[in-house]
């Protein structure tokens, strides 16, 4: 009777928290397909091979080769708060495509049913009957786009939404006019690599005055082993045009790390609006940090025209390492840039993410809202730069950067950089750090709420301001990803 009793709730609580944090990665399956894969390694020959496979014009091959030569002179960035063994760039496959898809775009009927099933399993049905209502999808599998839905409907509005390779063939003048004008090939090590070897991605063009009638989205899937994914997305909104674009990503579970080095360029002309949302759920590796995707991505928007607006919203839950700073160059007068981010790191995941807002035009405004959640031994770094150039009279920025810690072995860091070169600029920065406390969990459990639900509730509350920026379907997806129940808040 007097033997010490171990209270059962101690174990229960630890398990419940553990269960919340260790939900299975459901997208971790592999699709078996015959592929057209170039041998491992990178050289000018590899690039010529990729370019030839895609039947590209000479100017694009030259552009790639030029980028490759730049890349050879560069070294990987080391300033980020992430650590990993050096990557052997000769041990990566730079091009892998499902075999059936050799001759460019085909109708959906000709797409390998195994591929359609893969995307269906991931919740992205591509065939006519089950298409996502109101969302046009470009599905990218390893190095190529396998299908783009609603192309005809969009075409009636003069909108171009297709794979990058297709755009090179059908709209070479547009691609040539805008490619590399926001992220030049020599911008940074990974952008240079991407420019040399990029395989596919999405191209969007919204002509003058057109409001895109549906959400556009790209779903990226890494499947093949030892393969890097280097996609390139280019979105152009002409004067007065607007578009909302979504991006989702998953990969199989593997013990080896895989490299994903994408480039995204957005261009908004006068009065144009681009809203770019990402739910990133690349495989994060197992709980001991084995495997997972290295997500080294350069995303930048150019508010080239007056009164234009570019908004980035990202929910980053996957990847072993995330190195990503979606930024906005506020070139046009009265242009607006937004960055809304939720980044969750668990187990041994590392995220070094943030944004740059470069104010060049007059009366430009930007908002940065970053929510970092660290659990397990995860490390979460926010890096924000706000630069106000000497021309940017009346520039304003508001930055809020909140960190939530779950447990006591995780870490959160914030590195804000502010450079103001105009006396009229107003730049405000707020930061908070909080921890989900044992007292909060106990309080909820005393009301009959399980520890998982309590954590979900707190995490969901913490992220609410960012989730409400996401299009409806993605908000739901994001909540699910964070283990939050779908039951909405009343009132």
């Amino acid at each position, binding site marked *: *009777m*007097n*033997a*010490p*009793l*171990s*209270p*059962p*709730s*101690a174990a*229960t*609580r630890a398990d419940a928290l553990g269960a919340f944090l260790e939900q299975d990665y459901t997208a971790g399956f592999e699709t078996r397909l015959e592929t057209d894969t170039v041998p491992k390694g990178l050289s000018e020959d590899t690039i010529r091979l990729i370019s030839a496979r895609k039947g590209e014009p000479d100017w694009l091959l030259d552009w790639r080769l030029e980028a490759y030569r730049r890349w050879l002179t560069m070294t990987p960035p080391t300033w980020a708060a992430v650590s990993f063994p050096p990557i052997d760039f000769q041990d990566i496959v730079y091009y892998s495509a499902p075999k059936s898809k050799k001759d460019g775009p085909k109708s959906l009927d000709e797409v390998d049913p195994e591929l359609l099933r893969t995307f269906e399993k991931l919740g992205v049905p591509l065939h006519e009957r089950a298409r996502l209502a109101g969302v046009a999808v470009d599905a990218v599998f390893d190095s190529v786009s396998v299908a783009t839905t609603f192309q005809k409907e969009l075409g009636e509005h003069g909108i171009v939404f297709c794979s990058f390779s297709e755009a090179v063939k059908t709209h070479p003048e547009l691609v040539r006019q805008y490619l590399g004008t926001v992220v030049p090939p020599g911008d940074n090590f990974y952008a240079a690599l991407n420019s040399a070897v990029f395989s596919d991605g999405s191209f969007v063009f919204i002509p003058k005055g057109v409001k895109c009638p549906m959400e556009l989205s790209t779903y990226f899937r890494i499947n093949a082993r030892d393969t890097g994914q280097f996609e390139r997305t280019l979105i152009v909104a002409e004067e007065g045009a607007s578009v909302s674009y979504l991006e989702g990503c998953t990969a199989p579970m593997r013990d080896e790390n895989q490299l994903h080095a994408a480039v995204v360029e957005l261009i908004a002309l006068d009065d144009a609006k681009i809203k770019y949302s990402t739910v990133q759920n690349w495989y994060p590796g197992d709980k001991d940090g084995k495997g997972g995707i290295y997500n080294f991505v350069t995303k930048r928007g150019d508010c080239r025209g007056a009164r234009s607006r570019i908004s980035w919203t990202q929910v980053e839950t996957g990847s072993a390492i995330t190195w990503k700073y979606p930024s906005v160059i506020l070139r046009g007068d009265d242009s607006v840039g937004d960055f809304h981010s939720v980044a969750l790191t668990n187990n041994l995941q590392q995220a070094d993410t943030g944004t740059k807002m470069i104010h060049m035009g007059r009366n430009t405004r930007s908002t940065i809202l970053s929510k970092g959640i660290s659990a397990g031994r995860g490390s979460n770094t926010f890096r924000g730069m706000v630069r106000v150039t000497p021309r940017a009279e009346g520039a304003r920025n508001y930055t809020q950067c909140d960190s939530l810690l779950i447990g006591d072995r995780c870490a959160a860091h914030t590195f804000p950089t502010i450079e103001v070169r105009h006396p009229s600029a107003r730049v405000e920065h707020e930061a908070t750090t*909080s921890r989900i*406390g*044992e*007292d*909060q969990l*106990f*309080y*909820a*459990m*005393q*009301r*009959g*709420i*399980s*520890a998982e*639900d309590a954590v979900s*509730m*707190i995490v*969901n*509350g*913490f992220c*609410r301001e960012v989730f409400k920026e996401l299009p409806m379907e993605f908000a739901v997806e994001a909540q699910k990803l964070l283990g939050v129940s779908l*039951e*909405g*808040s*009343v*009132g």
Partner: protein
Amino acid sequence: MLKIDNLHAAVDGKAILNGLNLEVKDGEVHAIMGPNGSGKSTLAQVLAGRDTFQVTGGAVDWDGTDLLALPAEERARAGLFLAFQYPVEIPGVSNAYFLKAAVNAIRRHRGLPEYDAMDFLSRVKAEMKAVGMREEFLYRSVNEGFSGGEKKRNEVLQMALLEPKLAVLDETDSGLDIDALRIVAEGVNRLRSPERSMIVITHYQRLLDYIVPDQVHVLSHGRIVRSGGRELALELEEHGYGWIDAGAKAAPATGATGG
């Protein structure tokens, strides 16, 4: 019925409850008084299943169930409610969302249909009126920025919504002005019923002017050292806690060596 038998509990190896015995029958209201640091909140938290406290001996039987074997949330779902001495703030979670999740967790457990948003709102608004809380408190984060009195009312509101079988109120009266005190007492009295028992922990006898207990117990150094009727509270008020401590030290420490 709740039967606490020779309960010992410690925190970080430091013994706090040293052989506590208490029986509360269905429908009864018991008051527990005692000086600061005597272990009142520890008793409340141990009953509710907080694992920062280690039970080092004894047993608690609740209607034939081994209470100490249940995890905290199951105790709550089975009808044990604790009104916290220091209600916890949960930033970013609206009070409405939290209350609805709690009510529905308990309704699910009882095999009742869950409330939808409409049912819940009409129910919660009625209860809020009864405890004198404005509707805006539904849409604020749980306890965040609430005054001391508002937090205590929020506890009474939750108690009313969750309809517990056993309610433990830990100094719900502390820091309240007389009007708030009356509202809290009314909340408690409204819930009194033959099936429901309550343990009302208080530092001051004045609460017992409004909530008339069946029994009063005095806790000192982790044990109940005196039990009696209402008059014990008045006696205590008159002589102060020093009177009890003097008596406790003189009395043989029965059961205190068990841990």
